[in-house]
Every structure is written in C-alpha cells, then in structure tokens.
C-alpha cells in the first residue's frame, strides 16, 4: 500500500503537476494563437515575442511596485504588475494592428503575407525587448514560493517520495482555468463574443448583419493582450524570466493549436495538454514508478524511457505530423476543403 502511495506521489510530483502547469502555460499561449488565427486569419509568428514583451513590462512594473512597498503578501507582486501591463500591451497590439495588419486586411492579402509581416514584427519586438529590459535573466517571484515543500510533505506523510506544489504552479493552473472559463463565457454568453464568433465563422455574413469589423479586431487584440500577459507572467514566475526563452515556446504553442485545430479555443486547450503531457510522458523514466507498482522480481533495470530527453520537443512535432496525416483540420477544427 505504501508502495502504491509512493508510486502515485512520485507520478504526481514528477509528471502530473509539472505537466498540468506546463500545459496550462501552453494553453494560455495557444489560445492567443488560435484566436488570432480564428478572427484575423493568420498564424502570428510574433506571438511568443509578445509574451516576452508583456512579461518584461510586468517586471518593470513589479520592481516599481516593490519599490513603493506594495506587496500581495503570500502571492507574487507580479500579479499586480500584470494588471497594470494589460492595457499597455493592448495598446501595443492594437497599435501594431493599426500600423500594419489592418492595411493587409483591407487589401485582402494572402495569409502568407500576414505571416511574413508577423515575422517582421517578431524581429522588431526582439530588438525592443532588449531595449526595454536587456538580455539578462530576471527572477521576479516574491511571496511564498511553495504551498507544499518536499521536506514538509515527507515529514508529514512519512512517505519516501516527496510531493511538491509551488505557488506558481497552483496559480498557473488556477488562473488558466479561470481565464479559459471567462473566455468561453465571453464567447458564448455576450453579444460581443457572439459577434466575434460570427465574424470568425463567416466574415462576409457577419459584415452583412451589421457587425463592426474594427471593433471585433480591437476586441480580439485586447483579449490576446490579457492572455499574453497571463501566459508570459505565469511562465516567468514558474521557470524564471529570460527574455529569449519565449521564442522556444512558439513551436509548442503552434503545435498545440494545430493539433487542437486552428481557430478552436477548446482545441487549443486540449492540444496544449496533449503536447505537454506527451512531451513529459514519452521522455519520462518509468523505472521508479514501475518499481513501486510491480513485484520486486519484475522491477525493471533500465530507465524505461521511450525517448531520451534531448528529443523531447520533437515529440510535439511527431504528434503534429500524425495529426496532419490522419485528421488535417486538427481534433476540433472544422474540416476545411
């Protein structure tokens, strides 16, 4: 019985909690990708850079707040900084849209053109981030770091395996759920959300029924700003902020959105969880977990690892490739011609 408990705790601590946290971070990013795709019809290569910029600004706000003695007690001050950042990022996004994307929407450019322009925005944002915060990493987490610590859990439970739950992980999972629910309520229950969906489904029909396209676009960027700030800040809190680490998130976010079906919010979330958990589970060494569960004679000697960790990010693309082969529109996407 203890063995089984140990095994479960081991899995929870090493696989399930990190997977949920990573999946939630991806999901917040992938929701942004998929919203931009659904409403504005392009894959935004600058999305990861947007996350990074949002986090950089949040850090500056947080430092300012800390300097003025503001704190949230056990919670990180950065949450307050994030609230201040949202309007700023919304302005940045809407400004970029006004300056660039709107023009290409008007001339009805091919989706590739949008992608190329977004790559240009990516390069520029890259430089702007250096100007804003420089290339160094920053640790901006304050408050209580752990909800359950390894040692505390061992002492309390008497088990050999530790269980760890970090504040940032709990925050990530919790806020991701809240944000997702809020987004779904918005899309399904409000007039604005419904017209956004109508616009995404059929632009011409929506225009005929009196939807103001500029308003929809503005609204989309505001939501994307909220999601970006959340995703970036939560990721930074959990893993520590390094400005250019976010580039590495672009591919998994894309993979998650495509696996779920570009344009489908539900798909983005499911896709993110699939990507996060398969990355972890396929490269997870099952030796210890099996040793707890199986009788001693059957306990494995090797690591029982399907794939060594250096190929972990290849996993998301293997899934991507399989999905493209079997169901090109993604799990929840509408089957396009």
């Amino acid at each position: 019985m203890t063995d089984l408990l140990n095994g479960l705790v081991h899995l929870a601590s090493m696989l399930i909690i990190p997977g949920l946290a990573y999946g939630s971070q991806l999901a917040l990013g992938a929701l942004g990708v998929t919203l931009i795709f659904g409403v504005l019809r392009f894959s935004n290569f600058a999305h990861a850079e947007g996350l990074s910029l949002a986090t950089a600004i949040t850090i500056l706000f947080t430092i300012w707040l800390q300097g003025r003695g503001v704190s949230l007690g056990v919670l990180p001050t950065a949450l307050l900084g994030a609230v201040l950042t949202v309007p700023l990022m919304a302005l940045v996004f809407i400004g970029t849209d006004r300056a660039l994307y709107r023009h290409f929407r008007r001339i009805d450019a091919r989706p590739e053109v949008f992608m190329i322009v977004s790559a240009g925005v990516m390069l520029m944002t890259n430089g702007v981030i250096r100007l804003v915060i420089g290339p160094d990493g920053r640790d901006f987490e304050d408050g209580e770091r752990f909800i359950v610590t390894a040692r505390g859990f061992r002492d309390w439970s008497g088990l050999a395996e530790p269980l760890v739950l970090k504040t940032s992980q709990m925050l990530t999972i919790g806020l991701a759920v809240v944000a997702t629910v809020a987004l779904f309520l918005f899309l399904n229950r409000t007039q604005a959300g419904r017209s956004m969906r109508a616009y995404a489904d059929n632009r011409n029909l929506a225009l005929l029924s009196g939807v103001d396209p500029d308003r929809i676009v503005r609204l989309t960027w505001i939501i994307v700003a909220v999601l970006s700030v959340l995703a970036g800040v939560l990721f930074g809190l959990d893993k520590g902020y390094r400005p250019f680490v976010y580039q590495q998130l672009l591919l998994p976010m894309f993979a998650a959105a495509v696996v779920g079906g570009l344009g489908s919010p539900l798909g983005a979330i499911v896709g993110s969880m699939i990507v996060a958990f398969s990355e972890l589970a396929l490269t997870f060494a099952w030796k210890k977990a099996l040793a707890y569960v199986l009788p001693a004679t059957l306990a494995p000697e090797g690591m029982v690892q399907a794939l060594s960790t250096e190929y972990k990010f290849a996993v998301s693309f293997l899934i991507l490739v399989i999905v493209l082969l079997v169901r090109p529109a993604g799990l929840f996407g509408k089957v396009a011609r």
Partner: protein
Amino acid sequence: MSRTPLLFAAMAAVLLAVGLLQSWQLALTILNLCLISAVMALGVNVQWGVAGMFNVGTMGSAAVGGLAVVLISTPPVRAAWAAGGGGLLAAGAVLLATAALAFLLWRRMGERSLWRGPAVGAVVLLGLALSQRWFLPATAAIEAVDAASAGYLGGLGLPVVLAWAIGGLLAAAVAWPIGRLTAGLRSDYLAVATFGISEIILAVLRNEEWLARGVKNVTGLPRPVPFEADLQAAGWVQRLAASLDWPLRDTASVLVKLAYSAWFLAVLLIIWWALERLARAPWGRMMRAVRDNEEAARAMGKDVARRHLQAFVLGSAIVGIGGAMLVTLDGQFTAGSYQPLRFTFLIWVMVIIGGSGNHKGAILGAFLIWFVWVQAETAGLWLAQAGAAALAPDNPVRLALEEGPAQLRYVVMGLILVLVMRFSPRGLIPETTPESSR
C-alpha cells in the same frame, strides 16, 4: 526594366566602396557570403516566388547540405567503421525491413480496416525497438573511438566540390517525404510543419554524434582552394605582390578569397541560368498558372500537388547546395550554429526585398541584406552615436543604444521586412512575365 542594371550597379559600387574605404579582404568576405546567400535565396524563391509555398524550414535544408560536406569530403575514420559500422548497417537493415513491412501492411489492409493504423503503428514500434539492439552498442562504440578528435564515422574523402552537388541531392532527398506530407496542406499548416521539422533535423544533427560529431563540431574541412601559406610561398604570388606593391600576406589572402568567389559565382550562375530557363519555358508558365489559380489549373489537367512537391524539392536542393558551400567556406560544420533567425528568416527577408518571383530580384536581395546584416554593426555604432548624442546622457534609451549597437540588427531587419511588405510588396525588382514583356 532599366532599373535592374542600375540596382545591380549600385550594389557593386557599394561593395567596391567597401574595398576602397575599408579593405579588399573585407569586401571579398562579404561578397562570398553574398554569393552563397544568393544561392539560398534562389532556393526560397523557387518555393515562394514561383510556387507560392510558405516554407519556414530553410534552416533544415541548409544544415542537411552542410552535413553532406562532412559525409562526402572528410576522410573516413576506419577505426570507427571497424568498431560500429557493422552494427549500424544491421540496424539500418532492420529499419528498412520495418519500413517495407509497414508499407505492405498499409497497402494490403485497405482503407476500411479499423486495424490498419494500430497494426502499422505496432510494426513500426517493434522495428524501432528491435533496431536499437544493434544501433545503441554500435553508436556507443563509434563515439568512443578517439572521442576528442573523431568519435564519428567520417566521410568518404571525396573532393569537396562534389559534396556541394551531393548536398543538393541529400537536401532534396530529405525534402521529398516532407513535401509529400505537407505540400497539400493549407499555408498555415505548411509553415508550422516545416518550421518544426527543420528543428527536428537540427536536433538529430546535434545529438547523433556518430554522424557528424554532434555539438562537438567537425573542423578543418577540406577546401577547394589553396591555403594562404602555400600561396605566400609560391613564386608567382610573390612576383604579383611585388608588381602590385601590396603586402605578400594581403595578396595571398585576396587571391584565396577570389578563388572562393569564382567557385561560388560559377555555381550561382549555373543555378540562375537553369532557373531562368525554366521560368521562360512552359514550366514557368505552368507554375505561374498554378500559383494564379490552383483550382483552374487542376481543371486544366495540371497535377497541382505534384507540381508543388517538385518546386518544394527543387528549392530545398538549391538551399542545400548553398548550405554546403557555406560550410566549406567556414571550414567547419557546427550543428549548434543553425538558428532560424539566421538561416530561415534572414533568407526570407532577402527574397521578399529583392522581389519574390523574380530570380534577379532574389539575388539582389541576398546581396543587399547580407551586406546590411554584416555592416549593420558598423552602421549601428554610427547610428547609436548619432542618436545618443541627441538624447540626455542619463536617458535609458541612450544607455541601451550605447551598450548594444549590434542588437539593432534585428530591429533593422524587421523594419525593412515590414516596410517593404507595406509599401512595396513586389520588392525592388518586381516579377515580370516573359510573354508580356516582349
């Protein structure tokens, strides 16, 4: 039409100016990279400009081309072959058999069978697991052979110029299955898939040490031109230096760089000639038709998916040749140096700015953008100084500018890209259609 020669003349003048004001070695170094970039840009132009495919996996093709240089031109490591060659071949045979079996099963079981997917999957997994029995010990043995300087199988010891052609073929061979998989996809999916696959290729190159030493790099690759030291010792070079009244060292260095330029220029001209010829032939007409309207092209009997695949493979092969030449010029294959910003997006900027669809435009774009990329540091320093002078001494923007002029590169590239897309989407040399310009 008269704009094209003017733009090329301006580019030449700029390079000459670098030679006169800075140094000829620098001008030739930049020129050589311009030539290689032009080859890569032509490859991307075949995919985007001609076929309208948004491939974001250029980096993978360039790396595969570079790998070919290692596999073809380095001397074989006989001890490594002896240690693990057999095991590796056995593993390869198992994989081939698995692939054949999986293919047969896929064919035989028919579309309606529910078991087809799982059965094929099981066969593939079993085959992979089985091959590991030979693969793992073989690679471990290979990597143990003189790990600091070898630890890989080495190449075939053939002339390096041959490796350029093989680099093209290898890149084409890698591109073909990728193209089969992705060529029919919508542009967004194509972009994401190629982006990811190129990262996977790089992951393999970084981690499979037995292949090309992984992150330990292969240095001292053979070159198609003589060494500077040998030239300095040669009588005719000494006489040339004396008659030019140049230092001997500079003369030799310039000669070597000129020899590289001649090779690269020759390759570039051959590829350019072939592409121009294709563009003017019915092939070009057909490809433009496909790009204009896929549906109608299909109705007129053109196999659009196959044509896309063709262009994808051809473009990747050309990029591969460029990648092989680049590795030759560097004299080393460093798997860690392949970054999407440098090998994918920079090449894209070149094509877009030059004028997609127009091969001359792609070449000009490559020259211009590489020049800016290299010289942005100098110009950035100057701009930063000029800009900083206008700001208060403790202005954070000024401090940041003074600290990192080199970082302005990215901003400059992004700005150029966005401005061209916005105000001159057809680029510096817009595409012309052969018939209408007659």
